[in-house]
């Protein structure tokens, strides 16, 4: 870990375990703080990564302990990038209904992608849909 402008990069594999996801979140937050990212940017990154990890574990891997989630992230002075891959069958992000539509507003789930897209500067999915790549340009400049 360093704060002199160099890149912090990490690749890891975690179990389909929400505790493991939380541990990673803690590590990520400390790294972002060490590189003096603004609190608003840290909140945005934490939110998007939390939603993406939960999606990978709950929906992609169906909480199957035999399946894992691969994460690769880079923190550069000007941006944060992360790629999260689960071992599930994938999905089509276009199939996710709009959670802000009146008929969906009181559904207890389905808001993760909306939040990810709001908070991150760029969001892409692999063709299969089991990898999400997200970027956050620093200081809220989308």
């Amino acid at each position: 870990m360093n704060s002199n402008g160099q890149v912090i990069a990490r690749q890891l594999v975690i179990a389909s375990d929400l505790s493991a996801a939380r541990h990673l979140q803690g590590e990520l937050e400390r790294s972002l703080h060490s590189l003096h990212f603004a609190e608003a940017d840290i909140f945005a990154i934490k939110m998007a990564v939390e939603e993406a990890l939960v999606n990978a574990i709950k929906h992609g891997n169906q909480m199957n302990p035999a399946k894992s989630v691969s994460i690769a992230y880079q923190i550069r002075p000007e941006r944060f990038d992360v790629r999260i891959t689960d071992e599930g069958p994938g999905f089509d992000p276009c199939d996710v209904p709009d959670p802000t539509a009146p008929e969906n507003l009181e559904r207890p789930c389905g808001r993760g992608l909306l939040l990810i897209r709001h908070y991150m500067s760029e969001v892409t999915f692999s063709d299969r849909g089991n990898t999400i790549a997200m970027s956050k340009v620093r200081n809220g400049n989308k």
Partner: protein
Amino acid sequence: MTQQPRRRRLEVEDRGDIAVVNFIDKKILDEQNIQLIGDDLFRLVDELGRRKILLNFSNVDFLSSAALGKLITLNRKVQAVRGSLILCGISKDIKEVFEITKLDKLFKIHADEQAALQAF
């Protein structure tokens, strides 16, 4: 079978017939914690018969979509008993989450506890 003692996650204070709820953990409402917190909140209505609930988020600095889901379910439970659920003390960052998801239209939200108590 030995059970580990269940860690308290909510502080509930009675102000007349209003249950004022504060969250104990600061960095909470991630997926794992919210399942447990949701159970505690639902118990207020289902088992303890509370109909007026004020959730004070002053101590909360992170809230995921899973938390929003539990709040929606709690709101539905409270409405089913013709009660009232009000939220207060929400930070700017978390208020934005409610606005992005348009849930600021669903929930009654007040700036602080005093204003919220008046609203019941």
